[in-house]
Every structure is written in structure tokens, then in C-alpha cells.
């Protein structure tokens, strides 16, 4: 337990047993259905680190991002930012706290108000926080994200996707935050632009001492960019890798890894290691959510839900039959 406390002191962000349930269809004659988008997620993000959250559609990674920033109210669990429980803050204090944690969104097209000029977009944080805009700050911010100052009077539709995403980053940086939650910031960009933005984020982190929570569906990118990796499947964390090069223990992480296409024709391999598709989050099975697609599944997996167990320092996996080191899949 002592190690836990020490970790907390170093952690800028601590998420504890966070759960979010959505209810829907409460119509006059329709039955109510509920779906757990995020189930019992705990994790810590230490200062100056990049933690990656990776998973496919419906795994709850975007919901998690919004819970962290309190854009959604959790059903259960807490988020501590720099030691303060965000759930206990009064609205006024929460607004102040938002200065220190910001988000960059996936879609650079819909994340900027089409009626705002770029300088209005980047200046909005000051207006919202009721603060005078320091002279020259907009030019400084635009410069920081590699945009020319002339762009300030343009409208978003006059910019390319990459430029818009830079504007989104500048807006997030405006109030000098400590934490950036990056929700698939490059998923809707071209490959050549994606690499640019990643490079920019890396430089900014270095220069400004930022901490990142990086959400992505691309394990290759996450392994390149992040210090620690959280793998989610259908709302729950299935594995936590202490470093990008750690060999996965969970069969799902393994499958994700095997599903990425290496850009090297010399290393061709049999790709389809996984059958079936992600089931609906509305009626989750009783046992392990991945069991139906897993080649290692036993009867226990169908009836009992595995919890995260520690395999090595910082390496945890939620699996009854984890892959052990010497039985790696042939590559």
C-alpha cells in the first residue's frame, strides 16, 4: 500500500474505479435499456508522462476521456486532479480547474465553431474564464503550434485539416494547462499530417512540461508515442503495459498487435488471428467480455469475469489464461 501512496504523490491524475452507465429508450411503451460504457476503470497518470489508452470502437476510451475532464458525470468512482477530487468541486471551482486540463478533439472540422475566426477560437478560453487577453498571446500561441500569424483572421473552413487541428491544440494551450487529454487527435487526418501533429505534440510536451492522456485506436501509434499503455475492451481495462515494448499477456492485446499491418513487405505474416466481432455493449456476457472471440477461453471465462492481476511491476492483465513469456505467437 505504501507504494500506492507514493505513486499518488507523483501522479497528476488519479482515476479510481470510474464507471459510466448510459440509460436509453425510456419511452412510453419502450423498455429501458442500459449500457455500461466504462466499467470500474482505475489508473494514474504521473506528471510529465504520456499514458495511452487504446481500444476499438465501443471500448469506452472516448467516454473515459470525457469523464476525466468532467464533460460527463460518472455514475460511480472519482477523478483526482493534482490531489483534488473533481467531483466535489463547486461549479465555479470546477471552471477554474478546467484551466489546467484541456482536451484536443478527434474531428478538426466540427471542433471549431464555423462562425468564429481563428483568433476568436484561440481567444475563447480567456473570454470564458473572464480574463483579459494578454496582448500578443494569440500570435504567440499560433507560433507555438507552427501556424503563421496571418491565419488569425481566417475562418476554419479556409484551413486544411492539419491546420485546424493545430488551432485546436493552440486553443487547448491558451490557459497554460498541465494536462492535455488527446482524443484521437490524428484519426481524421492524412498519414503525412498525422506524423506532423504527433511531432508537434511531442515538442510541446518537452517545451511546456505537459502531461498527456492519449486516446487512440492505433496500437502502432500508441506504442510509438506513449510511456504506458492501457488497453480497453468493451468498457473495461483488460491490460496495462508499463512500457511500449512490454510483451502483452492478454490475448486481446496480442490480437490487436497482430492486426496491425507492418509497413515491411519482408515481414509478412498471417494476419487474421482473431475471429468474430465486438459484441453489443447492451447485453454483455456474464463472464469475460472477450471470451467469445478468444482461442484460449475456457468454461471459467464464460461464467466468471476476470479482474486485473499484477504480472510484473506495473504490468497487469485481466485474464484467467494469460500468455506466458515463452509461448509467443510466431511472427
Amino acid at each position, binding site marked *: 500500500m505504501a507504494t500506492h501512496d507514493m505513486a499518488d504523490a507523483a501522479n497528476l491524475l488519479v482515476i479510481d474505479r470510474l464507471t459510466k452507465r448510459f440509460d436509453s429508450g425510456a419511452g412510453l411503451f419502450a423498455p429501458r435499456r442500459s449500457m455500461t460504457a466504462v466499467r470500474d476503470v482505475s489508473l494514474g497518470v504521473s506528471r510529465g508522462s504520456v499514458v495511452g489508452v487504446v481500444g476499438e470502437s465501443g471500448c469506452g476510451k472516448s467516454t473515459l476521456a470525457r469523464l476525466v475532464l468532467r464533460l460527463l458525470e460518472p455514475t460511480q468512482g472519482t477523478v483526482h486532479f493534482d490531489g483534488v477530487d473533481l467531483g466535489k468541486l463547486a461549479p465555479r471551482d470546477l471552471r477554474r480547474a478546467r484551466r489546467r486540463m484541456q482536451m484536443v478533439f478527434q474531428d478538426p472540422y466540427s471542433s471549431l465553431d464555423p462562425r468564429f475566426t481563428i483568433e476568436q477560437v484561440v481567444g475563447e478560453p480567456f473570454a470564458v474564464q473572464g480574463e483579459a487577453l494578454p496582448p500578443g498571446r494569440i500570435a504567440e500561441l499560433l507560433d507555438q503550434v507552427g501556424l503563421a500569424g496571418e491565419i488569425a483572421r481566417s475562418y476554419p473552413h479556409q484551413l486544411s485539416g492539419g491546420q485546424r487541428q493545430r488551432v485546436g491544440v493552440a486553443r487547448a494551450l491558451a490557459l497554460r494547462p498541465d494536462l492535455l487529454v488527446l482524443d484521437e487527435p490524428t484519426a481524421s487526418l492524412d498519414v503525412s499530417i498525422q506524423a506532423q501533429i504527433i511531432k508537434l505534440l511531442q515538442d510541446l510536451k518537452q517545451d511546456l512540461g505537459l502531461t498527456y492522456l492519449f486516446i487512440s485506436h492505433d496500437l502502432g501509434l500508441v506504442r510509438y508515442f506513449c510511456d504506458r499503455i492501457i488497453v480497453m475492451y468493451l468498457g473495461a481495462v483488460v491490460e496495462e503495459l508499463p512500457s511500449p515494448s512490454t510483451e502483452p499477456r492478454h490475448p486481446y492485446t496480442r490480437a490487436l498487435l497482430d492486426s496491425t*499491418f507492418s509497413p515491411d513487405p519482408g515481414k509478412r505474416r498471417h494476419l487474421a488471428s482473431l475471429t468474430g466481432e465486438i459484441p453489443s455493449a447492451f447485453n454483455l456476457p456474464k463472464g469475460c467480455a472477450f471470451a467469445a472471440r478468444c482461442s484460449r477461453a475456457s468454461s471459467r471465462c464464460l461464467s466468471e469475469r476476470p479482474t486485473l492481476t499484477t504480472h510484473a511491476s506495473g504490468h497487469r492483465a485481466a485474464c484467467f489464461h494469460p500468455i506466458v513469456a515463452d509461448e509467443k505467437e510466431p511472427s
Partner: protein
Amino acid sequence: MGLLEVDRLSVGIGRLTLLEEITFEVDRGEILGLVGESGSGKSLTALAIAGLLPLIGARVTAGAVRFDDTDLTRLDEYRLRKFRGRRIAFITQNPMTALDPLQPVGEQVDVVARLHLGLPADVARSRTIEILTQLRIPEAATIYRQYPHQLSGGMKQRVVIAMALAGEPDLIVADEPTTALDVTVQAQIIHLLTSLVRERGLALVLITHDMGVVAQCCDRVAVLYAGRLAEQQGVRSLFAAPAHPYTHALIDCIPKDGMARGSLTGIAGSVPSVAHFPSGCRFHPRCIGRQSVCEASVPAATALPGGAVACHFPLNGDARHG
């Protein structure tokens, strides 16, 4: 002689020229990867091959699409229809929207065999179920009767592939067949599609923006940039020694195992839009090796062993590592 020869093909909408002098060929049993970012014209090339340009208001302005020695650009709509779905099949990007939501999926596959092979309804039906089974769809007879909204994304894309196979085509054009799918499903579908194509000895034009997919599945690669062909080569030589600086940079944009942080830099600038294509070599504003000639004149395609490159200063094998 390839099965499909795209020869100096240009395509325009109104006064805009979207594709300029695209040239490549594919033979039976071969998978060609057509790679490019947004605005490169890769989807347009696919539509041009299938003769579907009029649907989006575009037209072929020059060049030819020769399929089995017939120039498809010279055929009227009626004769073109004898090729479409029969000898040339098409797979679109998003399986979610590719199927008619008001019709059971099986019937949507049937129609191809009934129309082109003249099969009676019941024969077409059992053939459809057979194809669905080959595509590893469990309980194909049940799936046959279902509507698209009842199927998952991967399942729908299998049905689309079944539609492509139903006419027993010689060539399949697949436009980003897995982009809309989840990573793990993507891998399944790509594997399924490429292995079927290889088993049956079909030609496949696989359009994608993903260099990883190309490296894993294709035999040859054509790289498009801003409506022009940048480079065309065999897959191994292309990845080992890309001749066009754009290809080189594109390969370097993908994070690889064990790559050092910060080594990924991307390509400066942005992908030009059709209305603002730069003069000369269209890649020159973003190219590290550009010289004044690059801005002034369009580079002609020069032959490479097993391919071609359109660059004033193509990289040789050593430059890649230098």
C-alpha cells in the same frame, strides 16, 4: 499484356482536371496497391475503371482504360453494363452504407448472377449461400434472409465481397474496403479478400491510404499524389528503395516497432486541394530535395526496373539511407 491497362488516363469535373495521365497495369493473379492521401484521386481512378464517373458528374478527358483489349472509355452505357458486375466488380469503402437497407442481403447478391449469368432464382439463391459460406459467414442461409441493419460491419463487408464474387469477375476494384472497420475486423477482411483473390487467380486493384496494408498484401504498388502518379514499382523494391521522395516520406510517416521517439516528423505543409494544385511537380512545396526546376516543369515518368517514377531527382537505393 496486362488484363487491365490504364493508359495516360485523365479525368475532370467541369473545368477542373482531377486526374492527369495515370498509367498502370494489373494482370490476372496480381494484387496492385493504389496508394494515396486525400485528394490524390485514388477513388476517382477506381470509379474510372468501373465506368462510374458520370454518377459523380466527372468524365474521362483523355487516355484509355483497356480491359482485356477493350477500351472501356469508348463503350456506351449499355455495353459497359455487360462488364460491370460481370467481369469487373467493385467494392466500396463503407460497408455500412453499401447495401440497400430495404432489401434482404441475399437478394442483393442474387441479382448479380441472375442478371449476368442468367441463372434462375433458386439456383442463384443456392449459389449465393455457397459464396457466403466460402466467405466464412456462419449460418449463411439465415444471413441470406436478413436485412443490412441486422448485420455487423464486418458481416456487411463480407456480403459486399460476395456481391463482387457473384458475377465471377476477372478483376475486382476495392476502394478502401476496410477503412471503416475496427482494427481486428480489418485484418480479417483483408486476409479473406486477398486469399480469395489469390485462390481464384483474379486481378485486384486495392485502393488504400495505409502503407502497412500495401506492404502486407500487394504485389505491386502505384503511388498517387494530387492527381498524378508519383511512382510505380514492385512492393519489395518500393519499400526497400523508394524512388520518389514522396513515397519515401510516406513510408517514414508510419511508426515502426522500436522506433525512437521524435523520429517521426511527417511531411511539412498540407495535401493540396484540387483547386490549388501547385505548378510543376505537385509535391515540390513539401519536398526536401526540391530545386527550381521542380517548380517550373512537370517531371515526366521515367522507367525504373519494373516500374516508373515521375521526379526530376529520383532517389537511388543509397539515398534512402543517406
